[in-house]
């Protein structure tokens, strides 16, 4: 895949802050790739089986697991600062707030089709 160049040594990194530029290697990526592919197969297979109310739960659980893997490893959050984790958390939290408080209204209406 092309020879390593001297650029690797003068990578713009000053020696003391390796954590911020932790280089994740191909092995991790390949493992995650196969996990994601397996998850996809699993979720499609599960959708063809009648599990009643658990179907959407399982589908979302598998989707979330895949998403978590992408976030942690492909997007390097596993190796990132607390600030990054906080930022991701804030986004997820607000997303869930909008959905849950809005749905709370719809669920609790006396009229409507719940």
């Amino acid at each position, binding site marked *: *895949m*092309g020879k*390593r*160049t*001297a*650029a*690797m040594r*003068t*990578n*713009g*990194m*000053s020696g003391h*802050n390796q954590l*911020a*530029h932790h*280089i*994740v*290697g*191909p092995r991790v*990526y*390949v493992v*995650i*790739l196969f996990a*994601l*592919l397996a998850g*996809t197969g699993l*979720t*499609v297979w599960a*959708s*063809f*089986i*009648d599990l009643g109310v658990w*179907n*959407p739960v399982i*589908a*979302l659980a*598998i*989707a979330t697991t*895949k*998403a978590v893997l*992408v*976030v942690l*490893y*492909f*997007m390097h959050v596993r190796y990132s600062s607390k*600030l*990054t984790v906080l*930022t*991701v958390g804030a*986004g*997820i939290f*607000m*997303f869930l707030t*909008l*959905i849950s408080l*809005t749905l709370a209204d*719809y669920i609790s209406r006396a009229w*409507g*089709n*719940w």
Partner: protein
Amino acid sequence: MPDSPAIAHGAPEPAHEEHPSYLRHHFNSVEQQADTAGFAMWLFLVTEVMFFSGLFTAYLIYRNWYYPAFVAGSHQLDVRWGTLNTLVLIVSSFTMAMGVWCAQTGRRRGLVLCLSLTCLLGLGFLGIKTIEYREKIEKHHVPGFHYSLQSFVDPQSEPEVYSEYHDKPLPPDMARHTELYFSLYFLMTGMHAAHMIIGVGILAFMILRARAGAYTSGHSTYVLNFGLYWHFIDIVWIYLFALLYLISRHQ
């Protein structure tokens, strides 16, 4: 301790010789610049999450109100194309991550290869989406454009779908709500596709720059941050696939 003036000498300016050309003047170091760019990209992705959140909210509400219509609607989507698209995007995320590794380790040709593969896969995704959309247009399942309830009040008029799922005919008022399903389908996948198109465009530009060695001589920030964007798009699709295609394939 003696009081020191506030405008003390802070960190001295780096000598101009060791100052890379891509370091912008309001930053003190390359580190600070890279750190800042990464954080800014994450914040931007958070805004994107919130942008999509309204659509997910709408989806969840109407799926629960009109479940039979949503089931019938999702049967009209070909799960094979959807699965293939999911696999395409997952592999493209992998090639993108590999591209980041190449950039970080100075592998110019590897980076170009990875970015090109990612771009190709992205185009493949869009191609499949085009096929799917065309099919929807042919069957008059596009809201607002001669939307037809035929497939839902009389499922047997669609032999391929009927043979797989044996849907019961929907009563007319529930059949009408399939239009909501397709509105959300087109909105969500359309918004997603728009983001893909932008991503593919940026990728094309990046491939040119990568060939010139722009990202493999120490300044891999762009590749890293674009990777974040690309993975985000992948994550959105993971959820869209689960929610739109896999509602209930067991009938």
